[in-house]
């Protein structure tokens, strides 16, 4: 039982994500390891995290190059079979570019990188990732990004909203980047793929911040335990 964290050239938060997976798996007998972006066999994994950072320098467009990595093709199959996939920040951008999640992430409205602890509201979303939260619950998770402005054309946006795919919104007044409808994270229609701009892997230790992020990583593990 293994969790994989994909590493691209230019990934930054892959060790942090690995650490969060390990903390979440503590006591469950599961492990986590990095997955090099050229690996194509994801068969042995229970869940995959696409971490934050600046894959390929964020050149051209955040996530534009990384989505072509060999591991991404396998990831699409993995997701199609219902495997839990989490994209954080750059990982969210990569999943959007790859078409595994709806919408796109544009440069922040203020044009600057911004790093801040902030509050999120949990959406009413049917996703294993959210099994540790109550809909409407407020949690504290830091965000840090340059291109985090969630955008979807009106019809797609309506679809996402109606289907209950909005997993997280920035708490009122805290939208840092101009995201439409304050959207901070969305799932695919099936709910097994989640992407969010804030960094739950940086909210797993009381010493370095909040611990709300840990529940997100534990979510699908609980679901898997129920299933097996």
């Amino acid at each position, binding site marked *: 039982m293994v969790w994989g964290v994909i590493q691209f050239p230019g990934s930054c938060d892959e060790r942090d994500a690995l650490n969060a997976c390990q903390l979440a798996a503590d006591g469950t007998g599961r492990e986590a390891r990095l997955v090099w972006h050229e690996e194509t066999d994801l068969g042995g994994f229970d869940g995959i995290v696409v971490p934050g950072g*600046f894959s390929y320098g964020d050149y051209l467009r955040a996530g534009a190059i990384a989505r072509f990595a060999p591991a991404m093709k396998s990831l699409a199959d993995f997701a199609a079979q219902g495997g839990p996939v989490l994209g954080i920040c750059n990982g969210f951008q990569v999943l959007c570019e790859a078409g595994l999640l709806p919408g796109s992430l544009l440069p922040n409205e203020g044009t600057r990188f911004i790093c801040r602890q902030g509050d999120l509201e949990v959406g009413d979303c049917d996703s294993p990732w959210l099994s540790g939260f109550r809909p409407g619950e407020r949690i504290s998770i830091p965000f840090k990004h340059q291109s985090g402005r969630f955008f979807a054309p009106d019809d797609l946006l309506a679809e996402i909203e109606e289907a209950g795919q909005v997993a997280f919104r920035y708490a009122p007044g805290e939208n840092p980047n101009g995201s439409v409808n304050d959207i901070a994270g969305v799932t695919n229609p099936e709910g097994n793929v989640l992407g969010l701009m804030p960094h739950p892997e940086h909210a797993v230790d009381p010493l370095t911040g909040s611990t709300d992020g840990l529940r997100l990583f534990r979510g699908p593990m609980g679901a898997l335990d129920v299933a097996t």
Partner: protein
Amino acid sequence: MSRHRELGLTDEEYGLICDKMGREPNAVELAMFSLLWSEHCAYKHSRKLLGTLPTEGPRVVMGPGENAGAVDIGNGHSVAFKVESHNHPSAVEPFQGAATGVGGILRDVIALGARPIAILDSLRFGEPDDDRTRYLVDGVVRGIGHYGNSMGIPTVGGEIAFEPPYELNPLVNAMCVGLARTDEMVRAAASGTGNKIVLMGSLTGRDGIGGASVLASAELEEGDSDKRPTVQIGDPFEESKLLECCQELLGAGLLVSLQDLGAAGLTSSAGEMASAGGVGIDLDVGLVPLREEDMEPFEIIVSESQERMLAVVEPARIDEVIAICEKWQTGAAVIGEVTDSGLFRVLKDGEMVGEIAVGDLVDGCPLYDLDPAEPAEWIYPNERSLGEDSDASQTALALLAAPSIASKRWAWEQYDTLVGSRTVLRAGAADAAVLKIPESNRAIAVAIDGNGRRVACDPYLGTVEAVLECAANLATVGAEPLGVTNCLNFGNPEKPTVAWQLSRSVEGLGDACRALDLPVVGGNVSLYNETPAGPIYPTPVIGMVGEVPDPSRLGEGWQEGDAIALIGTFNPSLAGSQLEKLRGQTGPGLPRFETGPAAQAIELVRETVRAGVCSAAHDVSDGGLAIALAELALAAGVGCEVHLTALMAATECSDEDALFGEGPGGFILAGAETELEKLGGRGVPVELIGRVGGTGVEVGTPSATVTIGLEDCRRAFESLPDRVESGVVAGSS
């Protein structure tokens, strides 16, 4: 022949080169000499002074002479750190100048075999009242953020000061802190005749040709357009791959030695490696992978293209090394080998194009004595921005809003402060940043400090104060300093006034470090920071790394009902203070003080914080006691009521001195009254001065009282964006 003069060499130096070589150098050799014999590389005017600094201590793993210093933090791990300037490149192109400054200091730490875990930045600009300054501030902050953020290394602390003498010559100093397993660290000494020299990383282009001699060792003139083509572009993505690649190569034990390429490119990198190892090196520039086809040998050998490293590798391991570089999509080429000739030979496709004895090139540059003279009068401009008729509350608000004191949130929110999962206290949350080190089961604290204005008032005392302040900042998070790095930013040392500032400052640095029993493990010197308007303030910037046994014991901010104590021998004075500056009255001289009592107060504060018995600790610095109290109140969102009558009686100072006076040695602690009282009787003055509570900051003296609401405080303290952002377009480059 005056080519050598254009390249910055004096006639005497050129003569010496000819003597050493027994002939005139050719173009390739002259380019190499001009760079390695520049101030930037040879430390001609500072090396003798640096020799007086204390450099040894039980925890020192690597000291001056290596790419960075390093100290032992236990459990087989060391922390490597160094601060370096990128002042002149940043004055020309702030975004790329600052970005490549960060890239450069990261490589120094990477070269030791350490993984960078934190960046700190120490920045100085003119007052943010003109477009050019705001453009510089914006570009520099974005440049630092761009590089560190993209690399996934948190920028956890720093400082930004605004003073007129930096207007045309901003200071951009960046410090990097790295973590390494002590037994995996490498030195930059080439060895083993026949071993291969491998150049890794980016392609070599015409970046920064002559940068070291032209940009770093000549005074800036107004309108620097002719220096433009030498701008270097940073590529953090390339460096990120290079970092991971080096870590993997070192982990696999494949490298004999490793060295970064910085100023003077291959010339200095290979030259210094050969010198340190007592060997010779042959390099064939025809084997260097180029970005532009038609580069001349001299351009290749001095190019400052960024994101490159040089490694020495045993011939049998070359294939493994190349394979790992390919995995990381990092360029790698064998460009030469180690010899026993003691010569640095440059070849082009097998043909010799330059040959210099390593010793002549690296260690042959003459060192100069300074000719110091104390100036008869104050040489810096004073600008008045606050009248003398403001009441105490208005003065306090003006100080809180002064750009040098106001919150730097605007800057540090543009930095990733979290990546790496080590940041216990981020920038802005305390006087020093705290990073947990699970590898050695403890935490470290890091801080960077300088105060050019006070050093200008008294170069000796001002520098001692800077060292004490840095140690004080560490003490407030319970950290004991393990080692010091420093960056000496000064004007033209050939001028007697600057020579005096520099020599007195280094004396102060040495004395303060000896008083605290602290080794200087590394640093950097940046001279010729002057413009037609005069020299910058003499600005030694001090960086420290300290040890925190248990970061879970740190206070979380003062709380309603806590008692407030003033700790230490604090003799506040307006001399050299922020208030004097606002009034346009800065002049020579600082009050004398003893380092002994200051060191004792530092120790008491450190022990108290470590014991976990105080809710807040803060040193008294810019703006004095009233400002220190306001900062604590803002951090916790709870006010305070304080009376300074006892302090005034003890020190015979005026109301204004007590409220806004500065000087070393004073701390504010908050916590349970019974706990604070226990601190008495240990040889350090401890005075209860008030209580935490309410929604305002109230600091009273017999005839003047600061009374300001927290909201007003906050508005003033958070006013920096208004000052620095107007008219600036972020993100255009």
